[in-house]
């Protein structure tokens, strides 16, 4: 009797397990929608599905990262289990980290060590790893190599003063034939992009990262003021006054039309600038951003991670999908096929990757010198901090306030947002 029961139970459990394997689980994945993002996500998840027998449903997500964040915050705030895996921006871990699955024990340390360490640190909140790096971004300086040569400059500028001098000379010369030519364009509209740009300036002067890693508000310091003063003086001289209305595409449109000597932008502009119909095809190159007086070059860290929903009904499968997609092989495939920047330093020396996307070799320095936005330290108040900072820089660039007054106001406003702690 007892034997029969055991046998029955065993058979039943085997059948159940067999069934589970055959059908697999269905995961929902909120991935990408920008450019070829969706198709590349699909390729990756299809390969994983074929390997594991599970299925992945890809969601159509908003294009704008702010709208995406708002949507995810509402889902996670309601403890919804509908989405299992999220693609999260580099500044989100602090904002939504409480609702994401702790992956510390799921990701082997050896695997984690192969990634860029600043990103891993960024994704670790209170000692918990809540997201695995997937692809990265960093601010870079685009320059017109043909114009630099024409005006007798041997290399890209190393400091902001050098950039100012070179841009002024090229602008003065080019305006004789093209009255609209401008020296330097960047993202000056009051939004997250300006926070990225301005953080690079401030950090390259040694002015810190707005809020330091212990949560102390540091933005109102002489070096930061010097940086903002310098860059505000660009507006109306080597940069058009209307740079305060530019976002990434606004700046790229001007540069790609051949109307600017220098541009700060993300790596995505490279392949577009070198596309068939681009007027600047083959006439420009990419370098690390200039350094400030007594500082060193800084690039704001961008990029995306994969994280699992804490309320997911399939945490095991979700973790497995994340490990597969962020793994060496898939990152290499994405780098070669769609020029996504890997988060694994070794891939920047990989012959196949360098053959497909030559500029990854010269970009390597940019990602090792990258500075993270203070999202980890400011947690759920990051957006308020970012907005206070970018508004201060915007007010200084539009000459509404002096850099001193603007940064003092930012300091006060961030301190107010901090309250008794971030």
């Amino acid at each position, binding site marked *: 009797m007892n034997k029969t029961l055991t046998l029955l139970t065993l058979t039943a459990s085997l059948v159940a397990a067999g069934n589970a394997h055959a059908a697999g689980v269905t995961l929902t994945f909120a991935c990408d929608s920008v450019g070829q993002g969706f198709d590349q996500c699909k390729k990756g998840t299809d390969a994983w599905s074929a390997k594991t027998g599970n299925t992945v449903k890809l969601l159509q997500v908003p294009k704008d990262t*702010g709208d995406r964040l*708002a949507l995810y*915050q*509402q889902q*996670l*705030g309601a403890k919804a289990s509908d989405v299992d895996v999220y693609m999260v921006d580099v500044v989100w871990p602090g*904002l939504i980290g*409480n*609702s994401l699955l702790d992956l510390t024990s799921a990701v082997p340390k050896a695997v984690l060590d192969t990634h860029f360490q600043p990103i891993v640190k960024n994704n670790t909140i209170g000692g918990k790893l809540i997201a695995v790096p997937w692809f990265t971004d960093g601010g870079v300086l685009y320059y017109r190599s043909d114009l630099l040569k024409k005006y007798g400059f041997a290399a890209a500028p190393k400091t902001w003063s050098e950039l100012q001098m070179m841009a002024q000379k090229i602008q003065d010369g080019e*305006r004789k034939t093209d*009255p*609209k030519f*401008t020296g330097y364009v960047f993202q000056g*509209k*009051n*939004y997250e992009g300006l926070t990225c740009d301005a953080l690079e300036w401030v950090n390259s002067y040694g002015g810190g990262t707005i809020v330091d890693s212990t949560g102390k508000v540091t933005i109102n310091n002489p070096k930061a003021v010097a940086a903002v003063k310098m860059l505000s003086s660009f507006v*109306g001289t080597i*940069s*058009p*006054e*209307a*740079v*305060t*209305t530019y*976002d990434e595409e*606004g700046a790229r*449109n*001007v540069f790609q*039309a051949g*109307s600017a000597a220098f541009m700060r932008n993300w790596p995505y502009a490279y392949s577009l600038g070198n596309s068939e119909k681009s007027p600047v095809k083959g006439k420009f190159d990419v370098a690390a951003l200039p350094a400030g007086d007594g500082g060193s070059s800084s690039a704001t860290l961008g990029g995306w991670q994969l994280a699992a929903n804490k309320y997911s009904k399939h945490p095991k499968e979700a973790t497995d999908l994340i490990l597969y997609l962020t793994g060496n092989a898939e990152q290499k495939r994405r780098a070669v096929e769609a020029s996504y920047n890997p988060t694994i330093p070794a891939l920047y020396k990989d012959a196949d990757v360098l053959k497909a996307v030559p500029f990854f070799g010269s970009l390597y320095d940019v990602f090792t010198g990258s500075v993270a936005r203070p999202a980890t330290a400011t947690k*759920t*108040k990051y*957006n*308020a901090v970012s*907005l206070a900072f*970018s*508004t201060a820089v*915007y*007010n200084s660039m*539009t000459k*509404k306030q002096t850099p001193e007054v603007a940064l003092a106001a930012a300091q006060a406003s961030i301190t*107010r*947002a901090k309250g008794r702690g971030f």
Partner: protein
Amino acid sequence: MTVPVDVTMRPKQKAGIESTRARTAVWLLAPTLIVLALVAGYPLFRTFYLAFTDATFENPGKFVGFDNFLFKADDGTWVGLLTDPAWWESVVNTVRFTIGSVLFETLLGLAFALVINSKIRGKGLLRTAILVPWAIPTVVSAQMWNWMYQDNLGILSQWGQSLGWLKVGQSFLSNPNTSLWALVAVDIWKTTPFMALLLLAGLQSIPSDMYEAAEVDGASKVRQFFRLTLPLLSPALLVALIFRTLDALRVFDMPYVVKGYAPDTLTMSMFARQQLIDNQSLGAGSAVSLLVFLIIMLFTVIYVTTLRVRFD
């Protein structure tokens, strides 16, 4: 429901009909009232309630009284929404935007309506053509204007530069002194057709025999307009004015697409979104929404009382 006292004095049968009618009315109205309470009443009261809590997306929060609006901090300084210069700047921006856009939209809309209402050829085509800006989704037209304002490639900046109003690299949007008015221009372009349509409906309800009588009496066209058209149009005009004013006070989409969170064009609704969505603070964001509600209500009360609008 409440039956007048004298009804009881009437013959019994009639009172029965009256009360049956009243009961029927209640039953017929009930679905509407319930739907209204669910979709309008509940969110409104929920917002009022949240405005007095410190709720965030993740945390239901607790009651904090008026702290979201104004309170004395430990160091003796006053803090809260009412002391935030960014909020007051957004109020000033919104009111300036509203006055500028509604004024021009009313004048232009009235002119358009009079033209379309007159006996000219191609009237139908004109009426359709005029609606095009209104038919384009706001986000699309806002982005379109954004490109026209662009300093390097935009046509409006080219005109401005060739007229000597702008220097190279400047645009109407980049200068904080002109940016709000540049947005007012977009709103006028977009919403004048709506105004014209509302006023046209008003004009068409004026009987034509009045004009014939005025003609016989020898009144000039100008006199006809001020003595006849304008007074008879005023109910439609006031409704249109209230519609547009409330709309303009709530404006969000167009300035957000064109200028983002730039402080020189930040409106009240954008400020509310900043608090509510970007900063995830349901409490402070609801407090802003409550103030926006009160300000809009103030405008409505002013209109209704000073202009004696009748809603019947």
